[in-house]
């Protein structure tokens, strides 16, 4: 057991999975000699050699497309896209092939690959380095869309993603790559894909969040507890898609009040789906309109305004108060 940042935890997952299974290989831009621009793949080249840690040419489409080919041939590639904002160069590979190869071949050829990429704002980065467009991938049948919220879940979810028989788009919340450390056990740990986690218990309202925003939701929950004795249930989504809404329904039925948080643009964002599912399955339990705290429908502004753009605890608290104020 030792205290690790998310970067270190992800590195541990990769190292151990590569150690345990020769079929696991890593490829992408600058993942080898450089160890990845965020150092997530640091040390892997030395440990496993250039056959297994491939510094590829600068070409996202073939990185993803070749990963699919490798998967068909029996490997378990973990491709890195340097920032999620560049994954669109491979969008046709993801939508048209990675998501469909199992289906098209009726299970004969599968795509047990992972496409990792840092996403999200908050690190004073350049344009295209701060997006949060998980909805694109969540709306794509055949893909799984996973987002961890801390070092320990990052490690466990990445291990599960690598072992998963289906392709996983793995978004890493770069704002918390090194923001804090957590105990991450040295021994193997996995976390099932497709299962949200309840990370705080409360009966007064429900927060659903994921990635870096989970921490702002938790901060809001603490503020509410301290300032008005209101206890929030907080759910860490972990898997955005396929969305398992069971735990959310359960919580919503208990609290009757729900606030959803993400840093993706509001309109047509992931929270909309959760609202729709709640309306379909828990309508009569809702005591107030489900609230969404999200980024506005704009492009992430350059970094001088990115904190204003991002939902923060104060906005979440405000939405919660409004939701709580509704008389049932």
């Amino acid at each position, binding site marked *: 057991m030792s205290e690790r940042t998310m970067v270190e935890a992800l590195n541990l997952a990769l190292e151990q999975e590569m150690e345990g299974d020769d079929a696991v290989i890593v490829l992408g831009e600058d993942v080898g000699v450089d160890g990845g621009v965020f150092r997530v793949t640091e040390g892997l080249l030395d440990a496993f050699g250039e056959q297994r840690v491939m510094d590829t040419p600068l070409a996202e*489409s073939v990185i993803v497309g*070749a990963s699919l080919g490798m998967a068909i041939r*029996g490997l378990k590639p973990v491709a890195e896209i340097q920032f999620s904002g560049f994954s669109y160069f491979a969008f046709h590979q993801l939508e048209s*092939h990675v998501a469909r190869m199992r289906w098209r*071949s009726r299970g004969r050829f599968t795509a047990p690959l992972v496409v990792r990429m840092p996403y999200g704002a908050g690190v004073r980065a350049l344009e295209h380095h701060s997006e949060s467009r998980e909805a694109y991938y969540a709306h794509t049948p055949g893909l799984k869309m996973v987002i961890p919220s801390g070092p320990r879940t990052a490690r466990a979810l990445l291990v599960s993603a690598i072992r998963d028989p289906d392709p996983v788009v793995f978004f890493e919340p770069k704002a918390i790559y090194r923001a804090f450390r957590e105990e991450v056990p040295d021994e193997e740990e996995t976390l099932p894909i497709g299962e949200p986690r309840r990370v705080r218990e409360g009966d007064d309202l429900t927060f659903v969040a994921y990635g870096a925003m989970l921490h702002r939701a938790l901060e809001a929950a603490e503020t509410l507890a301290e300032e008005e004795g209101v206890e929030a249930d907080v759910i860490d989504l972990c898997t955005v898609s*396929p969305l398992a809404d069971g735990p959310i329904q359960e919580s919503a039925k208990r609290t009757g009040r729900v606030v959803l948080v993400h840093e993706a643009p509001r309109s047509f964002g992931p929270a909309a789906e959760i609202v729709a599912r709640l309306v379909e399955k828990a309508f009569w339990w809702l005591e107030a309109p489900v609230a969404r705290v999200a980024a506005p429908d704009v492009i992430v502004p350059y970094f001088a305004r990115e904190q204003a753009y991002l939902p923060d605890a104060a906005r979440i608290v405000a939405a919660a108060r409004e939701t709580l104020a509704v008389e049932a």
Partner: protein
Amino acid sequence: MPRETIDLPRSVEWLQVLDEEGALDEEWMPDLDDEELLAWHRAMLLSRRFDERLLELQRQGKIGTFAPVRGQEASQIGAVAALEEEDWVVPSFRETAAAVWRGIPLEGLLLYNAGYNEGGEVPEGKHDLPIAIPVASQIPHAVGIAYGAAYEGSDEVVMVFFGDGATSEGDFHESINFAGVFGCPVVFVCQNNQWAISLPREEQTKSKTLAQKGLSAGIPGIQVDGNDPFAVYVAAGEAVERARSGEGPTLIECVTYRLSLHTTADDPSKYRDEEEVEEWEAKDPLPRLQGFLQERDLLDDGAIEELEEEVSGEIEAAWEAASERMAELDDPAVMFDHVWAERPPELERQRETLAKEWSRRDEGAGGEGEE
């Protein structure tokens, strides 16, 4: 020091062995025994007749849109004949002749063309990918398979097919470059059939040949007469050999012609002259090979007639089998299969809801019948 021409390490060659007049260049004639030659001919003929039958079925509304292969049989069979069974074939959407050679069951192809996902199932053990429709997008997969094969120490080689139009797509270039960098054992077979739907080859790109596009990635490129199965076979054989011995990828441009429609939704009279088609009819690979075999006394009219019957029997049997199968495939719920390895709970819920709806309707329909 100043201004000088750079010596490029690679040039681009042209190869033809059996020309349209039937003249053979013995020097380059590959070493093929009679059995092999006859097998090539049979596959070409089967492919040709199957293609014709598909067109007929499509015109009768029994199957959907498909892309006829007519005219490109030599490019495909000459190429895949250079492979071993455990080598991989990554097709685009017009590789019926290659599929026939590789033993993909006609029944499956028919099912596929009739709109059943079940037709896309690749028989267990076969190293042939399903049809890929988005132009050029299958090329990266071939590169990845090749990398994987080499990584695992197997000596499998991968052959990927695509058209002249595909060379304009980024995926083609990213793939040949990636394969060049990692020395992947892959053979890129470009079937330059002169047209990408309505766009002629000369308007697709200003490069003199498509083969020279390999220079861009530092990989060898060769242009061959794609209606000459021997030229294709020689080039493919060299490329396969190179790939298998760890010397990396090759780009082969087969100069051929699409004698038929782009797809059954296409009307070529909008964009090309009959004269051009007639010129290329004269270069048709099937009579070319057939004439060669007749010249060598490996085939006579009687044998051809017999073969025609055999082939047409095979096609009809496949269509019967496919029709029977279709009659059984009446549950639309298969659409919920194979999207993920396991159906997530919400998808299972959706399946159940729809299944209920469908069976309600079936009952409704049955009920009405009984009244």
